[in-house]
């Protein structure tokens, strides 16, 4: 992939695929070839891992990589720990990847010697990529009395010129604690990738920011990432799929059955394809059962689905029918048990699973559980991130059902404690009411964008077969207050 003009007289900048999931998107397409970059952040934030992952992905015998280790982490330890990652391929070492220790040159404090050694090795191996880890050690080791011929500023400029002329994409890896610290390195660099660990209460979240990347449409902001045995995975914010994929037709033609015929009727013939629906109700009112019915109905029609369940005992509450569909891989499950989740991470996982199964139905059960799973640092931005996620999911053309715990308050009519109601195209609300000393359940369709729908408040029951929607309580009033009063002696009437 290249960026820039197609005009033959202008330089085309190749973009290298970094091999780090999500990073190319955040970089605006990939890493510009021959760029001179700084990878910065506090100790332990994943700089060396990120560098290694890119190096193992990009190095070839024809275009090898040189990894210069300086005074920082002892190379033996680095090799010991980095080889635990799956991307670390022993076979590449010596042919495609050369580790070179610069401790002797750096210890002299003479930057000229360091530069000469780097240039000598670059001339010998003709690398496509060069890493200097850690660059901070070079800076600290440089002694003014020894570097009368070459200042730090000149050293960086010369290094930059040399590496670009030798057509090497370069990374200086360094421990920097504050990005406001004036630093000549940051000025000279074409790219500046900053890694951070944000700590709030007990949760630690890793975040990455592209502070600078010359000539590239990078995605601004802090992007969460996770380090596992697979290496680093960056969660780019969910991007809207191209417009032609958003297949909600207007006016609505295709509708999906909810798996409960009476509910379909109340919704004016089912849920329009591509819509998002919020099912709000108090604990135990049957939201998850409704969500399961929605997915099972999809499977009956040959559709696949994806579920992100945030309940404490997700496996038990899903029911055997759903469990079987999951076993057959007709329903994909997004793993929500990892700690310190971000909305972007869940979005990325959901969208990946939707694409894998070519799914048409997605369930998030529940938003309340989702919010609890999030790292505290993301809770403040929950609504904004949710809005982004819902539109990204909608743009893939899936039909989305989300449940939301609704505290039963009989003084006001609320659908969602997060103000998420505005996000969705449709809202179904479930409530408890007291009738003749019994706790009854009631269901209503309160919103259905661009479609006629029933305005009835209907009783419903739940048994082993699922939800059964019954009658209206025609002779009662004040249902939304929770304890309706009887208007006349007439008993229940069918709706």
């Amino acid at each position, binding site marked *: 992939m290249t960026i820039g003009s197609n005009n033959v007289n202008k330089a085309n900048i190749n973009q290298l695929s970094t091999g780090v999931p999500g990073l190319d998107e955040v970089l605006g397409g990939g890493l510009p070839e021959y760029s001179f970059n700084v990878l910065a952040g506090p100790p332990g934030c994943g700089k060396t891992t990120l560098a290694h992952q890119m190096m193992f992905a990009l190095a070839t015998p024809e275009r090898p990589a040189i990894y210069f*280790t300086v005074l920082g982490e*002892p*190379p*033996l*330890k680095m*090799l*010991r720990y980095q*080889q635990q990652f799956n991307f670390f391929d*022993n*076979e590449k*070492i*010596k042919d495609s990847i050369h*580790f*070179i*220790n610069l*401790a*002797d040159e750096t210890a002299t404090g003479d930057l000229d010697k360091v530069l000469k050694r780097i240039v000598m090795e670059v001339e010998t191996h003709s690398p496509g990529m060069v890493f200097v880890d850690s660059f901070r050690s070079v800076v600290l080791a440089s002694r003014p009395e020894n570097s009368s011929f070459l200042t730090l500023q000149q050293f960086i400029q010369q290094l930059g010129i040399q590496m670009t002329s030798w057509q090497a994409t370069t990374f200086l890896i360094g421990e920097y604690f504050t990005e406001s610290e004036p630093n000549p390195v940051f000025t000279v660099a074409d790219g500046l990738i900053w890694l951070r660990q944000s700590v709030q209460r007990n949760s630690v979240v890793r975040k990455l920011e592209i502070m600078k990347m010359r000539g590239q449409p990078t995605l601004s902001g802090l992007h969460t990432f996770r380090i596992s045995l697979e290496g680093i995975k960056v969660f780019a914010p969910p991007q809207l799929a191209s417009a032609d994929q958003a297949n909600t037709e207007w006016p609505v033609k295709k509708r999906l059955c909810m798996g409960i015929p009476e509910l379909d009727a109340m919704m004016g013939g089912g849920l329009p394809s591509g819509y998002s629906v919020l099912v709000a109700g108090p604990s135990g009112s049957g939201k998850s059962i409704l969500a399961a019915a929605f997915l099972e109905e999809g499977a009956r029609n040959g559709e696949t689905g994806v579920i992100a369940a945030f309940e404490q005992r997700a496996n038990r509450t899903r029911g055997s029918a759903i469990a079987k569909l999951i076993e057959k891989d007709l329903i994909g499950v997004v793993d929500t048990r990892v700690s310190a989740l971000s909305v972007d991470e869940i979005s990325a996982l959901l969208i990946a699973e939707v694409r894998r199964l070519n799914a048409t139905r997605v369930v998030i059960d529940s938003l309340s559980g989702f919010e609890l799973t999030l790292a505290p640092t993301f809770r403040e931005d929950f609504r904004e991130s949710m809005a982004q996620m819902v539109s990204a999911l909608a743009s893939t053309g899936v039909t989305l059902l989300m449940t939301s715990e609704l505290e039963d308050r009989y003084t006001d009519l609320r659908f969602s404690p997060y103000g998420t109601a505005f996000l969705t195209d449709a809202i179904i609300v479930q409530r408890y009411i007291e009738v003749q000393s019994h706790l009854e359940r009631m269901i209503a369709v309160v919103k259905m964008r661009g479609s006629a729908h029933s305005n009835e408040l209907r009783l419903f029951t739940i048994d082993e077969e699922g939800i059964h929607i019954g009658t209206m309580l025609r002779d009662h009033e004040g249902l939304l207050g929770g304890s309706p009063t009887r208007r006349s002696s007439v008993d229940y009437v069918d709706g």
Partner: protein
Amino acid sequence: MQAALLSLVAAGASSSQIAEAAVNEWCEIDAVLSPIIGPHGVAALYKRALHLIRDDYPWLIAAHEHEGELLFNNFIQLKTALAKRTTAEASAANLSLYQSFHTTLVSLIGESLTHRLLTSILDNSLRGDAVQDTSS
């Protein structure tokens, strides 16, 4: 390393020749590892290897000691110490030292990567064998 030295012993080499050959091998190891893990890294591994075989070869570690500190100086102490022993003792001690060094390196960076880094030396040793075989 082992095969090359054993061939020398079999060929009736003197202790000095054994010592010379052993140090050449060590210099090759150093030449391969030093650029990667740094001279200090190699020195630390070498000293650890000496330490681990101190009970079997106390004279070997003693030769490296100076005022209570272990010295590492381009294997000069190793060469001197080996040359003073019988050929059998010298080759056995050097083999133990090499095995101890190798085991330590494997414990740190794994069998596969160690093998990968030291392949050229293993190849050289094999070539050395072939030369010995034809000359004998």
